[in-house]
């Protein structure tokens, strides 16, 4: 699977054509994973999924069981900040937040709850619809991302997002995490830890929640009927935030 995908990517699907000089030869060498003299391939030992393009057969989603989410716990929030290198500047109005705990209270009944809210990775994301350059996009596997190479910083996606999930980078940043590039003048939001997913790991918040939190967050493939998340959403009632908008978010909540 791995080498097959790689072959296809390197030759057939390649949009890259720098010069006619010796490039195809170089590519063929690379594709065959043979080490020509002077050519060293680094890191070929990574897991197979890192080299494969994502597929729409998968739809990543999350089920958050609020019955196990402690009101005072914000392990998911701090794990996210640590993983993605989010640092505050002491300016709460402009500091970025990819995931936050929201306290809700029903004024009629007095019921109250605290729940984590992040990008809901909608099937029909308004942020993607409104983005003029197509920088805001949905990956084949359902993860909604900002391509910061084409984001012009117009913030229209922030106007369109019903979940207040996006932040604008208001200042110059330094020493970002290599796997989480982010910079001044572009919009960003929860990536569902796409770099982890691409190497078969779970999002940092989910990991932290099961390690030190209440184990409320379950991550998995909503398209796979055999996955744990699919079984749970099939057997128990779950809710989406603002389901009335018809956006079909990939993040679902139990006991909301």
């Amino acid at each position: 699977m791995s080498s097959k995908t790689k072959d296809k990517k390197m030759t057939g699907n390649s949009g890259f054509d720098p010069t006619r000089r010796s490039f195809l030869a170089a590519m063929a060498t690379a594709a065959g994973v043979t080490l020509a003299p002077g050519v060293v391939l680094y890191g070929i030992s990574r897991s197979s999924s890192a080299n494969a393009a994502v597929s729409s057969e998968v739809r990543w989603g999350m089920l958050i069981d609020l019955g196990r989410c402690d009101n005072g716990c914000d392990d998911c929030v701090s794990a996210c900040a640590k993983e993605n290198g989010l640092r505050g500047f002491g300016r709460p109005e402009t500091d970025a937040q990819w995931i936050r705990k929201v306290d809700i209270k029903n004024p009629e009944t007095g019921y109250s709850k605290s729940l984590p809210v992040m990008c809901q990775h909608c099937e029909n994301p308004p942020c993607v619809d409104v983005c003029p350059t197509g920088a805001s996009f949905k990956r084949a596997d359902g993860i909604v991302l900002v391509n910061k190479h084409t984001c012009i910083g117009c913030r229209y996606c922030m106007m369109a997002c019903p979940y207040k999930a996006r932040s604008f980078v208001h200042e110059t940043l330094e020493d970002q995490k290599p796997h989480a590039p982010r910079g001044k003048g572009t919009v960003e939001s929860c990536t569902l830890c796409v770099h982890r997913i691409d190497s078969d790991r779970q999002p940092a918040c989910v990991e932290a929640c099961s390690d030190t939190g209440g184990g409320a967050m379950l991550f998995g493939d909503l398209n796979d009927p055999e996955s744990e998340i699919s079984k749970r959403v099939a057997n128990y009632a779950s809710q989406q935030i603002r389901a009335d908008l018809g956006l079909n978010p990939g993040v679902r909540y139990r006991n909301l």
Partner: protein
Amino acid sequence: MNWRHICITLLAVMLIGIGSPGAVVFAEEGNAVGNSLLPFIPMGRGNACVEDTDFMRRNHMELLKHQRDETVLEGTRSDQYSLTECLDCHAVAGPDANPVTFADSSHFCRACHDFASVSIDCFQCHASRPESGALPDDHQFSGAFPGTTRVKGSE
């Protein structure tokens, strides 16, 4: 009244004026090797790059751009042509033995880009040095400019 001569003289004066500060900078940085107008490129880790040096000089930006689109849009994360991988091998140690950031003129990318006056905005978002902070054990240099190589006649 010969306008052509005047123009050419003016142009020459301007070019010298622009060129000399740059020459001074490079001469200072390259004091180990001697005065030269050519940039001095810090050696990377390992024996060779992912492609021939000549190929990389001409095409590294295309490789990076190609890889970037595949990674961002399709989630293909082969290390070979990734920016992180470039930085892992080409990190330059500063005086404190930690890798320098792009803010430092000895950064690998700046060695040529400053010389060629080609500004890049990669590092407005991307980390410009390996995450670990310290350089890998097999990194072959520790000072600011321990091993330098000239553009021509390397290898």
